[in-house]
């Protein structure tokens, strides 16, 4: 009993704030018809889920690494574009797979390069210089080899071959696949060998750079764990097989149907994020741990570079990503009235409490959000790596002093965080539409959610996202139906600019009351 009173007293501000928020929510619900508020709440959940995917990754990264990853929004957008590519143009995806595998093949042998690089001793200036020369060489080789590899792609400049057109066709049910490009005069062996060579050179030079950066040059012994050799073989073989069976694979994957393709697309987006994350952390963020503000600036720069890159590849105009068949049915039995009906007829909407609810946007997305929330929660609470993360958020140095390689956990967390952002992007593609601007607004949402919930708190990210979603959707809905305010004859209709303004206002107020956010730690 006393502990309960103590709890109340300790968290007085939080409890008061929470009850005020709850009261506001109830008031907002009170002012609406049932069907309106049910839809609004469900839509909020959808927005909250997508926001949460970006925000939670952000919060994990910031908590453990102290890196404010402002590229999270851009990575979210990249996730959407990658998913679109796999989903609408699986042939391009298959084409890219081979050079990609060959490119990373070199990096699976990093311990070997590391060992070789540590053996390269001699004049100081030569030791300092050769990695750069190697990088330059690798760049040249890759430039030529990668360009020579035939990839069937779209052309944003020509309307009939632009991404938007392919989307339109896919929406009508016909997946348009242009004729595959083939090798011109270059020999396939030469090109593939070139990519492999470039990849080796690249990894080798990077290992050399890394060695030079470490002040202490320790003589290393060659230890190539078998896992690395297996990984190399696997990557190499996959690349080779995909290259040899390119055409049958393409027909097979196109024949899978949109539902399977969609789930493959989501998976690929997630993996892309994980890979990108570990790449960014290990090459760009890691050298800057002693200069935190520069990490922030580099993520900003990356975000700008990413947007431009996407614009260059996919073009500026926005386009849609049609929903997969399983969420897009419109048979006689639709809209469904029960969940069983949804599964049977793949209806795109369901009737629930007098309101029409879109299955993909308002049920599937929040569901995935919930699964990720639980999954990460279990990871944090039940596994050893989760324990290390929680400990590291509080005291990195001490974790290291226990003999744990925190840097490896850093890479893991960064990869995980970025992976969640790209997953979010892939999920949001069909519901939000795909544009280069989609990342920016979402990053803003996520940042506000984090500031509200507490920057480094994982549950805080969830609560904050939920609040942001609710706030936005209720304001939007009231923008349509209007609020009856006292002393006003006309109902007050919030205009669209008020939507972000309201969330910012909520954030400022909450920060004034609780400077560390709702669930942030007191230090």
């Amino acid at each position, binding site marked *: 009993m006393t502990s309960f009173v103590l709890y109340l007293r300790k968290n007085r501000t939080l409890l008061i704030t929470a009850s005020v928020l709850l009261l506001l929510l109830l008031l907002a619900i009170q002012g609406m018809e049932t069907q309106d508020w049910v839809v609004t709440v469900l839509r909020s959940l959808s927005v909250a889920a997508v926001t949460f995917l970006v925000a939670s990754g952000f919060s994990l990264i910031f908590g453990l690494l102290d890196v404010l990853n402002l590229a999270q929004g851009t990575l979210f957008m990249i996730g959407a574009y990658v998913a679109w590519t796999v989903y609408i143009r699986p042939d391009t995806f298959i084409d890219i797979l081979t050079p990609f595998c060959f490119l990373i093949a070199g990096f699976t042998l990093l311990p070997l390069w590391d060992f070789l690089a540590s053996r390269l001793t001699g004049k100081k200036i030569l030791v300092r210089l050769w990695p750069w020369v190697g990088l330059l060489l690798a760049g040249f080789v890759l430039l030529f080899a990668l360009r020579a590899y035939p990839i069937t792609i779209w052309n944003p400049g020509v309307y009939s071959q632009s991404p938007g057109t392919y989307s339109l066709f896919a929406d009508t049910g016909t997946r348009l696949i242009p004729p595959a490009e083939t090798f011109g005069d270059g020999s396939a062996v030469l090109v593939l060998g070139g990519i492999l060579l470039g990849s080796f050179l690249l990894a080798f030079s990077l290992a050399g750079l890394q060695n030079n950066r470490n002040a202490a040059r*320790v003589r290393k012994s060659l230890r190539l764990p078998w896992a690395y050799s297996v990984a190399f073989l696997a990557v190499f073989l996959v690349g080779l097989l995909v290259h040899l069976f390119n055409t049958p694979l393409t027909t097979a994957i196109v024949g899978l149907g949109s539902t399977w393709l969609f789930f493959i697309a989501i998976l690929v987006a997630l993996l892309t994020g994980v890979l990108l994350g570990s790449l960014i952390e290990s090459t760009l963020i890691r050298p800057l741990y002693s200069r935190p503000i520069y990490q922030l600036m580099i993520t900003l720069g990356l975000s700008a570079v990413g947007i431009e890159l996407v614009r260059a590849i996919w073009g500026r105009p926005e386009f849609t990503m049609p929903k997969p068949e399983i969420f897009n049915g419109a048979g006689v039995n639709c809209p469904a009235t029960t969940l069983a009906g949804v599964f049977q007829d793949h209806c795109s909407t369901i009737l629930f409490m007098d309101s029409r609810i879109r299955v993909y946007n308002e049920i599937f997305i929040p569901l995935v959000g919930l699964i990720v929330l639980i999954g990460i929660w279990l990871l944090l609470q039940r596994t*050893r790596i989760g324990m*290390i993360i929680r400990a590291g958020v509080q*005291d990195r*140095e001490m974790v290291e002093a*226990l*003999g744990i390689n925190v840097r490896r956990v850093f890479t893991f967390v960064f990869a995980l965080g970025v992976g969640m952002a790209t997953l979010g992007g892939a999920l949001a593609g069909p519901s939000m539409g795909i544009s280069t601007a989609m990342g920016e607004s979402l990053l803003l949402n996520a940042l506000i959610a984090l500031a509200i919930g507490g920057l480094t708190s994982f549950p805080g990210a969830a609560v904050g996202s939920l609040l942001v979603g609710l706030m936005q959707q209720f304001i939007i809905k009231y923008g349509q139906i209007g609020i009856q305010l006292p002393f006003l004859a006309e109902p007050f209709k919030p205009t669209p600019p008020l939507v972000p303004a309201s969330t910012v206002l909520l954030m400022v107020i909450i920060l004034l009351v609780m400077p560390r956010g709702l669930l942030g730690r007191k230090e």
Partner: protein
Amino acid sequence: METLLEVRDVHTFIGQYHILQGVSLKVRKGGITALLGRNGAGKTTTLKTILGLTPPRQGEVIFADQPIHEMRSFDIAALGIGFVPEQRAIFRDLSVEENLKIAERKRGDLRRKQEMIFSLFPDLQRLIHLPGTHLSGGQQQMLAIARALVADNRLLLIDEPSEGLAPVIIEQLILAIRQLSAETTILLVEQNFIVAGQLAEDYVIIEEGQSVKTGKMAALVKDEQIIHRYLGAA
């Protein structure tokens, strides 16, 4: 007399500040060596330098005949050096059990050692599921020491264990540390000279980032002049 740890003329910088300006010390295998000195003399930095948390810019650190000053700190720790930081820095968000479990270097370390740990600190067994925030200062200190015992450590670096604790608790701690020293070597940083004097056999005095005096504790306890000169009031 076998030397477990040797620090040779180490210089450490934190940012642009030259904190350690030549520290040398030897830690005899078995027994307790006390690192003494005034506030800000560089005792904690010496411990962190040994562990590689603030790597030295110059000088050598040799642990069990192996130079470790160029190694990464987690590799150094994995050689068998346990660290008990000042201000009882346990992981407050983790439960007592998790605090111990995170220190495992091999699976099952905790299961093997828990009997020894709980006989040393019976309190911890009772509190095993409590989060770190709920522990009292003395309990936190015990947990911090216990955490360093989970893995097989040949050397313990203990930083200011008695700081801010009640005399009764300090008594308990002294007993526990003495018991520990039967099995492992300990390098102890201690402001409280009474505690250090009771525990240690050897001492090293650090002043303004330099090691200025080493010797046997038994001799130091009698030499009030040195105590007054380097450590202020005894």
